[in-house]
């Protein structure tokens, strides 16, 4: 077991965003994470990556309690993430964006040459090789998402959290992204993927967890989860 | 892409060069059409109110000199007009240096300075370095004269002479005389000095300092000090307020009903705007000055007339000291007979001349020895001369003196 969440809770001014959630992530899997808007997916990512501290509960990475650690420590321990609303370093080039990940991540380096080579490699891998000298602010939505992923990959994570990487992509782009995610998994990285594009999440996930209002409502194989009445209701509303 | 930056850098350099090169062209040595005199003054910034008085004086004086054809220079056996270049140092010590260097390269034979210890302390040192005279009112500070700088000459009075003067003035009055002293000390050099001499003088003359408080420039509320002085029963209030503090202090004293018999302040009340700013509240405040527009010394009528014509009022106290500096310079240049900085310095050092501010000659440290000091007292929007020092004995008939009046309580005014 790679990541354990133990009765995790977080509330914002009375609203329970995460409500005593238990969740395990296994090494090498792609865990799909679904739920309607506002169900607490992003909050959970923020908790795992240490941007938010839980009100109660624990998060363990390979048995080590990472709850009290600050974000950069958690990153250096091997958890990388992307943001749903991408947060590129806008005034820096794509290359520099990714170099940050390499230089400060799990395998930090002082050598800019090494960071640059690695970043170039990752940019090519992700399909941004051509745009490595573009300023991030000049990139389009899709490229920004790719850039986020590249930056996260550059930290050499053991666990990668992808937050709505495929939202807003065309079907072809979604296909490409799915291939990419699988390639990432094949390189030995465990993934948690939050996605609205159901097609994608069902296509790539080994396992799916559905949450609503901060509580787990279903867990299991993708096809099963998506057929669960609770899940459909959560998405489409109750059928009369 | 790199290349673009280099081009930019390079053009930047070219711009600098364009700025520099014309100034590098050798200045051709030719017979001087004018005598170059610079005046680095704080025309903007906090010292501007004072420096403007000096500027007015210099302009009036050199207009007069040039109207008479200039200064007679023996070397060329003719009168040469004076060209005065007024440079602004923005009340900023760094700019003082900058502008003095400009004056230096421009070829000024001497620099006429402004007032205020900041520009004085910095400016005179630059003058020393460049071996160019710095001559002007300067400041009341004593310390700047103790550094062995011999290119500076101040036509102003100095703290060791004005501070004890207050005690002499009080002693000259019939009994009963106030004895208890309060001092409001601002955190500035000349005030620190003045306080030292006030302390020494009090000891010697049998006055008692019952209250002494330091405060910082920029203070807006003086009531704590006023309350303290009042509680200590001080009858004489000594202070060195910066000009913007004067009216606030007086108004707060009245509000708090503090009734000293004598307010003797250096600096703030000397400006002619002090009275109008305060109205009748300004009455009875005393201030030592190095010149007054009421002095009936030759030259003053003309200075006052011209000042009235140009600026709509009689000269301010600094105007006279600056005007005197101009007179000293012209006199020295005339005596030197050549336009050489060193020669001019030497003749200034030997100055012994009558000016609108009385006779001026300098100590080896550059301060004016036996300088005429007047004490003015505000009354009905006018500054009356109520006291003068020993140097004033020679000008008895020129000084329209009235009697000093103790300040009555606020309630009976």
């Amino acid at each position, binding site marked *: 077991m790679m990541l354990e969440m133990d009765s995790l809770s977080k509330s914002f001014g009375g609203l329970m965003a995460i409500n005593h959630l238990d969740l395990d992530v296994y090494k090498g899997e792609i865990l799909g994470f679904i739920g309607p808007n506002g169900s607490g997916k992003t909050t959970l990512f923020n908790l795992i990556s240490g941007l938010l501290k839980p009100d109660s509960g624990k998060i363990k990475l390979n048995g080590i309690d990472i709850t009290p650690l600050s974000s950069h420590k958690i990153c250096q321990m091997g958890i990388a993430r992307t943001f749903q609303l991408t947060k590129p370093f806008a005034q820096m080039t794509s290359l520099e964006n990714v170099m940050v990940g390499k230089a400060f991540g799990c395998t930090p380096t002082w050598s800019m040459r090494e960071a640059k080579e690695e970043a170039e490699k990752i940019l090519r891998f992700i399909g941004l090789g051509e745009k490595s000298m573009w300023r991030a602010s000049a990139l389009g939505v899709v490229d920004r998402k790719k850039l986020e992923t590249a930056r996260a990959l550059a930290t050499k994570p053991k666990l990668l959290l992808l937050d709505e990487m495929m939202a807003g992509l065309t079907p072809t782009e979604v296909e490409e992204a799915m291939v990419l995610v699988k390639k990432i998994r094949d390189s030995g990285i465990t993934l948690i993927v939050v996605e609205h594009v159901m097609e994608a999440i069902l296509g790539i996930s080994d396992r799916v967890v559905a949450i609503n209002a901060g509580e787990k409502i279903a867990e299991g194989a993708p096809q099963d989860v998506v057929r669960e009445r609770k899940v459909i209701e959560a998405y489409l509303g109750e059928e009369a | 892409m790199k290349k673009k930056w280099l081009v930019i850098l390079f053009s930047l350099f070219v711009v600098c060069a364009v700025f520099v090169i014309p100034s590098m062209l050798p200045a051709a040595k030719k017979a001087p059409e004018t005598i170059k005199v610079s005046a680095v003054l704080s025309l*903007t910034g906090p010292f501007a*109110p004072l420096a403007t008085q000096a500027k007015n004086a210099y302009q009036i004086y050199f207009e007069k000199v040039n109207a008479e054809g200039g200064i007679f220079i023996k070397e060329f056996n003719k009168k040469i007009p004076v060209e005065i270049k007024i440079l602004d140092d923005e009340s900023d010590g760094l700019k003082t240096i900058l502008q003095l260097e400009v004056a230096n390269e421009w070829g000024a034979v001497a620099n006429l300075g402004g007032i205020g210890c900041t520009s004085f302390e910095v400016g005179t040192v630059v003058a020393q370095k460049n071996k160019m005279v710095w001559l002007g009112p300067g400041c009341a500070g004593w310390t700047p004269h103790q550094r062995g700088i011999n290119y500076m000459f101040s036509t102003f009075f100095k703290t060791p002479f004005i501070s004890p003067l207050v005690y002499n003035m009080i002693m000259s009055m019939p009994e009963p005389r106030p004895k208890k002293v309060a001092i409001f000390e601002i955190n500035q050099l000349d005030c620190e000095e003045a306080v030292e001499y006030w302390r020494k003088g009090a000891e010697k003359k049998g006055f008692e300092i019952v209250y002494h408080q330091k405060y*910082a420039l920029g203070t807006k*509320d003086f009531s*704590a000090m006023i309350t303290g002085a009042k509680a200590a029963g001080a009858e004489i209030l000594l202070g060195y307020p910066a*000009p*913007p503090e004067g*009216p606030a202090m007086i108004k707060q004293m009245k509000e708090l009903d503090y009734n000293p018999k004598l307010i003797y302040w250096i600096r703030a009340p000397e400006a002619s*705007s002090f009275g109008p700013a305060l109205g009748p509240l300004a009455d009875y405040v005393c201030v030592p000055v190095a010149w007054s527009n009421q002095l009936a010394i030759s030259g003053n009528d003309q200075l006052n007339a011209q000042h009235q014509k140009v600026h709509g009022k009689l000269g301010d106290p600094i105007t006279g000291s600056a005007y005197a500096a101009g007179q000293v310079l012209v006199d020295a240049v005339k005596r030197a007979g050549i336009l050489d900085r060193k020669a001019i310095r030497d003749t200034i050092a030997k100055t012994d001349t009558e000016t609108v501010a009385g006779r001026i000659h300098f100590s080896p440290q550059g301060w004016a020895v036996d300088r005429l000091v007047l004490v003015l007292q505000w009354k009905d929007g006018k500054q009356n001369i109520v006291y003068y020092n020993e140097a004033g004995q020679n000008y008895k008939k020129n000084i329209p003196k009235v009697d000093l009046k103790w300040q009555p309580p606020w309630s009976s005014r």
Partner: protein
Amino acid sequence: MVQFLAQTFVNGINVGALYGLAAVGLSLIFGVMRILNVAHGEFLMVGGYIGFWLFKLYGVDPFVGLPLVGIFLFLIGIVFYKVVFSRVAKFHEEVKLKNSLLIAFGLYLIFPQIAMVLWTADERAISPAYSGQAFDLLGVRFGYVPLAGVCIAIIVILAMYLFLTKTYFGKSLRGTAESWKAAKLSGIHIEWTFMITFGLGISLAGIAGVLIALTQELTPFMGMPWTLKALIVVVLAGMGSIVGAFVAGLILGIVEAVSAIFMGPYTIAIGLLIFLIILVLRPQGLFGRA
């Protein structure tokens, strides 16, 4: 001793009310427009001089002149908004803040020079016949002018408060401060709101300027120190809090008055130090929200 402390308190309030009044306009402009007008003190100076002119040239009592100065400065504010600040108001928040700072810095270079031409570098003050007069209450002296200053400050702040909470237009200003997007969708004309806000803020500076001219003094270079004071008060209160700014001004005045008894020349530093400590302990300001 009690009397002495009470007196100190009163003195502190006298000056603190000026600090507060000087800060309110700055706070209003920042709160609604996110423009940090570090030339606030310059407008304050202009207000003071206009009041001085009215008094000197036309014999208008400064308290009668206050509304005139307020209106005049309001117009000046609108002109300055139209000519320079409206161009900045369109920028993205961060760029706006930065560029408004820079523009105000440029104004800070310009204003004193114009003031020197118009009013000369001589110090001025407004001293009507009643200035300095005071009455005694239980051994504590109350000056009429400072008291009137405090009252006017309170009236102005109260009027401002009522305007902002009770009138339709005032509410729209507050709404714009909360969220300009929501304001736009409610049919509020943002450009218009910004212009009025700027005018009001400047007008408040002008009123503070007249009161300062009554109790302190006017010089062309008084702007920057007052801007700094106002800034500190605004931050102490929490950016954009109107009534808070006034209260924070009073607090700063009282702190300075009390520390003046013990600290002499370090009074100003003590006031600032307390400000820093509050800031570190409560980064959102005394009356700001987390």
